[in-house]
């Protein structure tokens, strides 16, 4: 056959094609999503209310502890330092500083957790369930018919989601810092960036894998997203240092280990260490040291991306064989 147009198939062309596809698919998320100013209310201000609840609880406990330390009684003229009366004003000041520091660390943990919640929700609702919605609105078959690599499609969704959510997460972070007066101390900004991006890649890799599985399971998977919201908030330590669960005898370690399979858990633990100092909470509430956690995140990122690729390839084959996944009426 004399084809009308000579089509390139070389590697350079394929790289260009897939990069364009990534940019194309990320465009609706980055540009389109910000056309609705309501996101500022729903995704920047409302999450602050969720964070506020935890912040106020921690601040209340901090103030209670501070009150006990500062309260002079006939038997404890310099207040209580733990279970014993403080020996002098300097011990009292030391204890008060520790309480203040721990309260700040807890509040900062909540603000950081609240920031990462934005990414987790984006992964659950806009990444994992996205292919299912694409199928419903009729886009999926057009995507599957295009010559781009399927990972470029997922990559575009992920890049778009990351950029879009980063804007929201940063606005939550800034608001959190100004509203709750949290103090962060970043000693190693490069490591912080490395951990942050490794966390995002691993997290969105998980979302890419879920995207195929959700499509396979259809509407049942929708419920799975709802199911994974609150329990994951808890088991991944979005609002408290996850290492705290290890100190709860019985079920605590099991829940913490289960939660650690979500990259956000390990990533958040490392981010907290990098922004609060590894000595925060007496250094007792961290799971691993930062380097180990970064290594785990890199392994998770690679693993989830590979699994996502195979899951989508399997799904595409199944779709073509059974003819019921790319089109909503088949």
């Amino acid at each position, binding site marked *: 056959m004399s084809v009308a147009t000579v089509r390139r198939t070389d590697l350079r062309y394929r790289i260009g094609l897939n990069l364009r596809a990534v940019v194309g698919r990320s465009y609706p998320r980055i540009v389109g999503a910000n056309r609705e100013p309501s996101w500022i209310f729903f995704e920047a201000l409302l999450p602050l209310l969720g964070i506020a609840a935890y912040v106020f609880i921690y601040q209340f406990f901090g103030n209670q502890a501070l009150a006990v330390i500062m309260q002079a009684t006939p038997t404890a003229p310099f207040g209580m330092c733990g279970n014993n009366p403080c020996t002098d004003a300097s011990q009292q000041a030391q204890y008060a500083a520790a309480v203040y520091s721990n309260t700040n660390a807890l509040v900062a943990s909540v603000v950081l957790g609240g920031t990462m919640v934005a990414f987790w929700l984006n992964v659950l609702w806009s990444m994992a369930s996205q292919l299912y919605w694409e199928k419903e609105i009729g886009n999926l078959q057009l995507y599957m018919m295009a*010559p781009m690599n399927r990972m470029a499609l997922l990559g575009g969704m992920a890049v778009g989601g990351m950029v879009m959510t980063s804007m929201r997460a940063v606005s939550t972070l800034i608001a959190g810092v100004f509203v709750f007066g949290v103090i962060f101390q970043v000693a190693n900004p490069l490591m912080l960036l490395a951990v942050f991006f490794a966390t995002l890649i691993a997290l969105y890799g998980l979302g890419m894998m879920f995207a195929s599985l959700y499509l396979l399971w259809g509407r049942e998977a929708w419920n799975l997203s709802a199911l994974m919201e609150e329990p994951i908030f808890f088991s991944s330590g979005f609002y408290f240092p996850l290492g705290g669960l290890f100190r709860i005898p019985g079920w605590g370690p099991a829940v913490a280990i289960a939660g650690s399979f979500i990259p956000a858990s390990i990533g958040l633990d490392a981010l907290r260490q990098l922004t609060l100092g590894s000595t925060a909470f007496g250094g007792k509430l961290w799971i691993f040291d930062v380097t180990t956690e970064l290594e785990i995140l890199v392994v998770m990122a690679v693993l989830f991306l590979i699994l996502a690729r195979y899951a989508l390839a399997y799904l595409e084959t199944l*779709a073509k064989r059974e003819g019921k996944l790319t089109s909503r009426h088949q």
Partner: protein
Amino acid sequence: MTYAVETRDLTRIFAGKKRRFRRKARPNGSEDSQGPVTALDGVSLGINEGELFGMLGPNGAGKTTLIKILATLLLPTAGQAFVAGHDVAKDPFPIRQRINMVSGGETSGYGLLTARENIWMFSQFYGVPSKVSKERIDELMHVFGLWDKRDAKVRMLSTGQRQKMNMIRGFVTDPDILFLDEPTLGLDVNAARVIREYVMNWVRKRSGKTVLLTSHYMAEADQMCDRIAIIDKGRILACDTPANLKRMIRTDTTFQLEVDTIRDTSSFVGLRGVKNFSHKDDISKNRSHLTFILEDEGPVAEILSSITSQGAKVHSLQKSEPTLEDVFISMVGRGLD
């Protein structure tokens, strides 16, 4: 000779669905499931490069299934299909570079993006350089009369405007082979005319461009297509130029009758000299429209007597030249509606 599109004994069977939760076992012990559906049954056809090829068939005939196989979205159960010389099952990448597809009533794209942005986005999945894509979009928007709506969000577009946008999406990647699945479905006369004219010009004026069009509209297929295949129940019943198809039944006589609504058409079945007939009710006017393909004029009297015996009045009787619709009725045994 190699074709732009070729199928060889193409068969597609959709497996039946088993119900996950069964209430009760059936008394006869049968499986509580929908049986397998044969959407395509040994379809063999060849579409030449530069041809505007039409496919006519009622709902469920297998047209969309065929297009989905050719668009590499479905695998055949048996047989082979080749697009631009490549096997759809084994070598989809070079096919995907050369094809595009537009379906009638499509709701693709994102409502938050403008028409222009949506089309640009889809062009990126084919690796069209951004500058080239934007130039083509602007040009096509002028042609399809969508220029005024270029910056309107897609959710604000009417059905017709949206379909024009879909058509531009199909052309913007400059495909060699374009699959159009009922592209003018639900469009007003003007919008449909614009689309038809552009498609015809595209095939005639651009060398090597091929279109496979499915349509419900006989006149549209007759006007546009170089060749037409008539498909029913997954089988190709005939494939030729519109003129040759009509010639096939030229020896037959076509009569069209408008009568009071009649309920019983069984008396026409097996009537000597009646090759086929179709029956369509117009409830608003309480009338029935009957089209008979007859071997000769002999059975007319008997048909009229059968109608009047049901108490129905004959309002008009017309002998006509065979149309594509008559060909369709002659082969399928019913109209498209």
